[in-house]
């Protein structure tokens, strides 16, 4: 269950794609962390994730987890954002039969799931073919 407070806490990342760049070595973290796992630096500058990406790997979910049943089948992939981090997200508005790694994608703000019949409507990022 995703309660409203837990959901609210992640809004900077899910609505605004806020990441952090290590002031010491330049590595980008999404979500932001307190310590850089590359150089152990503790100073970061906020950055916004780029919205263009490339599909590195993906799957078609046929047996969906609770809360996603009505969306199946759907594609989930790992997308490398331009010169930045990789993220896991759904690939939508695409042909599941011809989807392929290397596909150029663009990040869009979408509804992701619904927490039961009366819970939070959960939004975030998904990707569409560029």
């Amino acid at each position, binding site marked *: 269950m*995703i309660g409203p407070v837990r959901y609210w806490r*992640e809004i900077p990342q899910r609505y605004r794609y806020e990441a952090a760049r290590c002031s010491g070595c330049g590595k980008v973290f*999404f*979500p932001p962390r307190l310590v850089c796992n590359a150089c152990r630096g503790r100073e970061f500058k906020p950055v916004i994730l780029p919205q263009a990406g490339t599909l*590195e*790997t*993906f*799957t*078609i*979910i*046929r*047996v*969906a*987890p*609770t*809360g*996603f049943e009505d*969306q199946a089948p*759907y594609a*989930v*992939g*790992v997308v490398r954002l331009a010169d930045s*981090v*990789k*993220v*896991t*997200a*759904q690939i939508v508005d695409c042909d599941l039969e011809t989807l392929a*790694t290397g596909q150029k994608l663009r990040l869009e703000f979408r509804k*992701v*799931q619904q927490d039961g019949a009366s819970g939070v409507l*959960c939004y*975030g990022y998904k990707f569409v073919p560029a």
Partner: protein
Amino acid sequence: MREVAVIGVGMNKWGELWEKSHRRIWTEAALAAVDDAGVDRVDAMYVGCMSGGLFVGQEHLGALLADELGMGPIPGTRVESACASGGLAFRQAYLAVAAGAHDIVLATGVEKMTDVDGGAATYALSTAADQEYECYQGITFPGLYAMMARVHMERYGTTRRQLADVAVKNHAHGMFNDLAQFRMKVTAEQVMGSAAVADPLRLLDCSPITDGAAAVVLCPLEMARKLSKQPAVRVAASAHATDRIALHERDDMADLASTRHAAALAYKQAGIGPKDLSFCEVHDCFTIAEILVIEALGLVPRGKGGAAAGSGLTALGGTIPVNPSGGLKSKGHPVGATGIAQIREAVLQLRGEAGKRQVPKARWGLTQNMGGTGASTVVHIFERALGRKR
């Protein structure tokens, strides 16, 4: 540090055990191990369990199960590292004996997974992934391994048939294991024709939902002959390593870095290399997992794991048999118990008591147990204690 031996093993028949409770399953295996060792006391015990809370609504397992064991107010500790909980429980028991804190220690694992429906079980298992940045997006565990499989297939040319060959091999091995959940042969065609779960993985690429437990008894090697009539099996290495929990945070999504690191540490401790091993028990939660693991253990070069099962290299009778027990695929995967059951198999093999699945002249055995998509791995190496007879 003291040298440590395993002097007793226990396990019950695994499967959908409707008539047996979580504590009953555990106690059967624990008593079997105590009886096998022939000891009349246990000084401390460790319980590997991934999610008593989500599967049966029961936490506080150290106390609950110590009481069930009936050996007094001994310290009971529950250990959790997702699907590597059992392997890590063994490692804690090993460290306690090696350090001199306790002499006779019971290392156990248990999971009762069928009291909840499939959706709840899938949710419980998914807690081993990053809840906010993986599961939130609608990915499942088969989906995460499917994405690892696609990287391996596209980069190294691993085929759909080669994934199926892993299931075929492990089910063939499981035919010789009377405690296995699915003692049945499968063909590559059956695997490739089974229901699609998360492309390219299908139902028969996945290990099952299982109720089960396993237990082993450890003691200092020098006390083994006095405490037990069983031939002692020496713990030659114990290693544990971690990695990023989210698959997308790893530089190479087809490299099980935690397994690679733990294996390197274990080989160094044991003073042997992969070519010295007689057999391995590895974490084949999905067919692709065994392929990735045997590469990370150095049994085959990087990218060459796909052909190993079909060529017979990793089958019983091959150069390096992998999962003679049937693996998670055939034996079943009660997540917290899996790591301990792997060690039970290693001990039976090194005692020469593995029956029709016995690896001839087995001397060195390795067990590899991992959590999530490989964010934690525990590797142990065992040696037949030479010159110690019944």
